[in-house]
């Protein structure tokens, strides 16, 4: 017994070390943290209180890393917001187009604007629908807002649309309220012009312009724009109207193609007439 006691005293450091290591491993392996839960919660609560007292001290490194993380998050959220806004706008557009399609009796084909070409004041859109979808030259292109243009060329899967703000555009049109007829042209700005309207005609700003049945290219009664200005040319007998198109061409993404070509019989008759005139009077 004495020798055992001496042994323990002599090697007390090693024996204690082994015991403490065993105890530590026991706590790690079998230690029931739940039993310490209340005490631990008390300690952590106390430390939390102390921590909150020190929370006013800025930590530059933590702030830097937090700022960096916040910036990244900000960029991500901004992208999300842009995407969501875009989706909302697109959704609204598609909803209104859907409503328009339901209410319109014309055979319509939905198409997407996949390209915009502008050469010397000649503006064209490329759509993702072509001959395979039944698209032909001369078909009108519209949106729920109004007239966009006319198909001038097709391939199997695409077509080219000459939009109304094009220097080659000549649109027989009519003032909705008074049924007065005229020809719309593009003056190179964001507006259309209607010239040669006699001063005796009842015309005022705010009147709507529709496509006319006199046109052999455009389907009648398609909204085109609104008169925003009526001016007189000095001593002239005519007025000049400034028309704002209903369609916003800069943000156009989806359109309808009216699957209806101009009446071939009428076209043939009018073309023969033109040929006869040219033959008789010569090309001017």
């Amino acid at each position: 017994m004495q020798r055992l006691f001496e042994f323990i005293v002599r090697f007390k450091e090693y024996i204690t070390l082994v015991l403490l290591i065993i105890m530590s491993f026991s706590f790690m392996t079998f230690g029931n943290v739940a039993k310490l839960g209340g005490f631990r919660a008390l300690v952590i609560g106390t430390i939390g209180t102390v921590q909150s007292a020190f929370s006013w001290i800025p930590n530059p490194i933590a702030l830097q890393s937090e700022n960096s993380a916040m910036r990244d998050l900000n960029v991500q959220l901004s992208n999300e917001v842009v995407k969501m806004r875009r989706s909302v706008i697109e959704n609204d557009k598609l909803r209104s187009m859907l409503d328009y399609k339901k209410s319109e009796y014309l055979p319509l084909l939905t198409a997407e604007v996949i390209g915009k070409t502008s050469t010397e004041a000649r503006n064209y859109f490329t759509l993702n629908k072509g001959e395979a979808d039944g698209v032909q030259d001369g078909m009108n292109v519209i949106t729920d807002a109004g007239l966009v243009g006319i198909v001038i060329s097709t391939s199997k899967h695409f077509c080219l649309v000459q939009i109304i703000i094009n220097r080659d555009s000549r649109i027989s049109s009519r003032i909705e309220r008074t049924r007065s007829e005229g020809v719309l042209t593009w003056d190179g700005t964001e507006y259309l012009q209607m010239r040669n309207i006699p001063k005796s005609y009842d015309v005022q700003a705010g009147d709507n312009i529709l496509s006319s049945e006199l046109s052999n290219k455009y389907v009648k009664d398609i909204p085109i724009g609104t008169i925003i200005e009526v001016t007189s040319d000095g001593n002239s007998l005519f007025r000049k109207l400034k028309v704002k198109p209903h369609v916003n061409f800069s943000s156009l993404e989806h359109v309808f193609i009216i699957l209806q070509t101009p009446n071939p019989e009428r076209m043939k008759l009018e073309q023969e007439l033109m040929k006869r005139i040219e033959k008789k009077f010569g090309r001017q």
Partner: protein
Amino acid sequence: MQRMILEQSVLTANPQLRYVVYAIIALLLTIINVVVIQLIAVAGVTPNLLLIMCVTIALIEGQFTGLLFGWCVGMVFDIASTDDIGLNALAMTVSSFIAGYFYLEGKTAKSLGTTRYLLVVALASLIYFTIYFLLFIRPVNSTVYDFLIKNIAASTLYTSVFSILPMLWFSRNMDRSS
């Protein structure tokens, strides 16, 4: 200075009072280690003030006392932090035990006020962080580079560098008292 020498002589003469002072300092350091040490973190690495204290105790009081003190401090730190209970106790016990080998009876000034102290802290830190991270992180989840360089070497280095402050303090005060 006379007051300091008087206080030191009181502490030297009364071991119980000395242990109470150790306990109070340990509690304060535990709070500092948990609450405010993050303010001086470099790339997530912080010095371990409690380990520096355990090494100091082992060098002042000897291996046996250092061993017991290391375990107690480790347990308190385990409870105060969110670590597994027993993890810090184990690592602190072993590192205090190793530090105790460098205890020089009657030559405390030589142990604490010189670069020897830094080397002992560095060795104890290396042992402490190796045990701690081996059990805490489990290196299979980490690359060797991360495990060795960031977790062990960086923590050891930072703790060792931080121990310069107590070394300078001991160096100054031991000279005065002698």
